[in-house]
């Protein structure tokens, strides 16, 4: 089943390109550490989902949207390299003028003005799919076009394609961002997406930046480096996996399966991704891993809320069962231990069937009201990903984002209390009432996540 990607704004378009490139490169890679037949099935499954063929050339199932033409043109020409994949030249929408980091401008001006043309482009892309599983919408949350227009379009997609799934890949801004109103933009985006999207897959710029610096040993980190790490993480989630334990068929609707496992509850929609191992191409040939070692580290990353495979706090332990939840113990625990609502573990590579997953089936990792039988699932394929002999990705719905979200809401509230910059929003029809609605909703989300135990 196909997934149509909508790339929004500068950030969304740059990441989108890297994601397609990573998916394509991996699926064409001959070093899959598996049989030829397996490799072919894997390739076919990946291609069907993210690409369509036109005269023998894979065309990305994507619609590119930005209000400035520069980035889109760059991406189109980058994708036009011979022997690889391409974007459809007609599946793009751009204008001459951006949103100037004003969410209200993107949402209230660009949105209503251009929604029809953009929806037409999306409709054309959808018509080229035998079956549509859903939309993958890539955008930042702190800017103007991607976030404002993105929130508007997601709402439109919800209205027009109510049976298709919507996953928003959102980029969390740097804590020390340059845009003064980034916290306003973030709460407006998040609250609007919470109403119209099925799942928010969050990547924090700070975390990915650290991965580049520590694990990939990149000296001068560019957006491209960051986006490539991000694309690697997304690829390791969305590349094909077998549909069942002993099956040789690839999963037909991974987006649907993922959502069914992780985000059925309307109040818990925020997903984080952890991958292991992650390293520069030069050190890859000199490293070997065992499933045991990888999974032990990944589990500790999960429970201690470490964003990467370095500097993990090994002191954090799951709480002992039968301890009374209220009281000091609980407070103490809350600060360190990361409770999961649901986890999806994806394993790729050699001997996957031998990997021991018991560590993730520990009831202490989960809430009292959803046991591991419902809260944990694992997908596997013997096909290696991106030349890593063994690799694992963990998509988790849990307390990862309680603190960043709380911080953003707090900062935005402080500005809002002194009415700073509000006029820039009211000028375009976003009233104080809309801000208050956003605060209420997000505070409810923070409280819900905080109360997981």
């Amino acid at each position, binding site marked *: 089943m196909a997934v149509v990607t909508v790339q929004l704004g500068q950030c969304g378009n740059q990441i989108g390109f890297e994601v397609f490139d990573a998916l394509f490169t991996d699926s064409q890679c001959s070093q899959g550490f598996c049989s030829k037949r397996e490799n072919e099935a894997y390739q076919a499954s990946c291609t069907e989902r993210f690409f369509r063929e036109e005269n023998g050339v894979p065309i990305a199932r994507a619609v590119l949207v930005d209000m400035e033409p520069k980035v889109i043109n760059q991406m189109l020409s980058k994708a036009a390299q011979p022997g690889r994949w391409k974007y459809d030249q007609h599946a793009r929408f751009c204008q001459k003028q951006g949103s100037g980091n004003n969410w209200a401008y993107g949402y209230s001006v660009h949105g209503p003005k251009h929604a029809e043309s953009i929806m037409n482009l999306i409709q054309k892309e959808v018509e080229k799919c035998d079956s549509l599983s859903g939309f993958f919408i890539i955008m930042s949350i702190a800017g103007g076009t991607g976030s404002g227009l993105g929130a508007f379009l997601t709402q439109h997609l919800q209205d027009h394609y109510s049976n298709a*799934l919507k996953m928003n890949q959102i980029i969390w801004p740097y804590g020390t961002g340059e845009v003064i109103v980034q916290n306003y933009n973030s709460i407006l985006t998040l609250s609007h997406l919470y109403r119209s999207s099925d799942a928010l897959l969050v990547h924090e710029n700070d975390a990915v930046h650290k991965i580049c610096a520590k694990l990939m040993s990149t000296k001068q980190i560019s957006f491209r480096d960051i986006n490539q790490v991000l694309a690697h993480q997304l690829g390791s989630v969305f590349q094909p996996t077998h549909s069942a334990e002993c099956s040789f068929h690839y999963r037909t609707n991974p987006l649907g399966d993922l959502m*069914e496992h992780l*985000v059925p509850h309307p109040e818990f929609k925020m997903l984080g991704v952890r991958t292991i191992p992650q390293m520069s191409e030069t050190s890859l040939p000199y490293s070997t891993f065992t499933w045991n070692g990888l999974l032990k580290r990944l589990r500790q990353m999960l429970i201690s809320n470490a964003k990467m495979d370095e500097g993990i706090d090994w002191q954090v332990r799951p709480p002992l069962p039968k301890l009374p939840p209220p009281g000091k113990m609980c407070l103490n625990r809350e600060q360190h231990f990361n409770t999961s609502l649901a986890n999806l573990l994806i394993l790729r590579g050699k001997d996957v069937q031998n990997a021991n997953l018991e560590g993730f089936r520990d009831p202490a990792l989960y809430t009292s009201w959803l046991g591991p039988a419902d809260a944990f699932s694992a997908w596997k394929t013997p096909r290696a990903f991106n030349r890593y002999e063994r690799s694992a990705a963990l998509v988790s719905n849990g307390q990862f984002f309680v603190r960043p979200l709380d911080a953003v809401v707090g900062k935005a509230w402080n500005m809002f209390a002194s009415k700073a910059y509000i006029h820039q929003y009211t000028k375009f029809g976003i009233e104080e009432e809309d801000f208050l609605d956003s605060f209420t909703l997000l505070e409810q989300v923070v409280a819900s996540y905080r109360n997981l135990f």
Partner: protein
Amino acid sequence: MGRRRRRVDEEASARAGAGARTLLDAIATLSRSLPTGPCPEIFRRAKFDRPEAAPALWELLFRLLAPLLADRAAASLGPGAQARWVKAVLCSHGYPRPALAQLPEDGSQGSRELLLAFSWLLARGPLLEWLLAQTCVKLGDQVPTFECEVLASPGLATPQMDAEGPVDLRCLQWLMGKLRFQWQQLICSQEEQCALLSKIHMYTWGCHSDRNLGHLSVTETEMLRDPEGSQQLLQALEQENAQLEAALEWRRYELVFWQWMDTVLGACPSEDPAVPTFQPSISEHGRGKLELVAQELQALKEELQALQELLRKEVLSRRQAWETQIGGLGHGPEWSAARQALQQAVDRELLALRQAWKQGKGPSLPQGPHRLVKIEAGSAEAQGLPVAEVIRALRSQEASLEAVLCRLQGQCRQELARLAGTVPGLIWILPPGR
């Protein structure tokens, strides 16, 4: 030794009465016309309530009552669960013999009761025809028909769940959300199937030897791609053919079988008529409530009787008063003309109502499966059931189901609001989205 002697006895009786031979034939044809029918010997043993015949009969009943589930579920369900299923479904169909419900579920005994239950099903309706339609090998693509009836048929009785503590609302919301996603996935895969079906029909246009059809079906295309599969298909068709032949033959012998069944019934110990039919099991939790309801019912009954009495008196007195009042009226020519006009008006209105009702009821689909065939618009051979009609019928069905859903949701919402209102200090915040 014993067995041999019995057989000798049987043969002797077969010689004695020509009927026995036909009885054996009757049971044999019946067994052959059932999918995975047990061997005829099982029936004979069941007459004598032999325990070894019981497992095969439980299995048979399970397959008859759960044909859609049978293949997959039979493997996953143990004999105990199968037996529970059979009991539950028979109960819901109104099977009258309480002895069945008391049978142990381990399949160790009760073959005669099971044989009676089976013949009850057989006598009740067109069981064989229905089964044959269910297991029919489908060569053409089927028009999707209403599946609401299938969904509404009694499901496997869920084990009584008296939750120990209160269930966390979040868990219910989680499960509800899961259901919603599964529903969306189902719709997606249905759409995919339709799209692929349409592709097959287009690519195979003009390939069919039957001019009326114009294109191949999925099964036919599959046969072309995989000739070995056609062997299997042939086998399936032959099997179905044998079943059909057996079913036809069965018609000739049916009477003999029923005569024999009378002797089986006669062999049963007579039942205590005082024993009521099925006692529904009531959980501890429900018992208290039930008593309350019973008391309330009794009180209401008394009240109703009192009211009826009152009403009767009231009507009597009114009627008397009225009759004296109209006294001499109602005989003149004006009166009869007015009455005639009224009568006509009522007739007209009735007719209009009937028509409106007929239209409002919406089109109903003709029964039975239909082969899905693509025909060029305006083609002369166009006959049968146009897709537009099917779609219209499905739409109207959808609309009425949606109305029911809306009504139920409204009721739930009211109930929820009422419950929320009973908790002091509670602020009700609806979850975001949906």
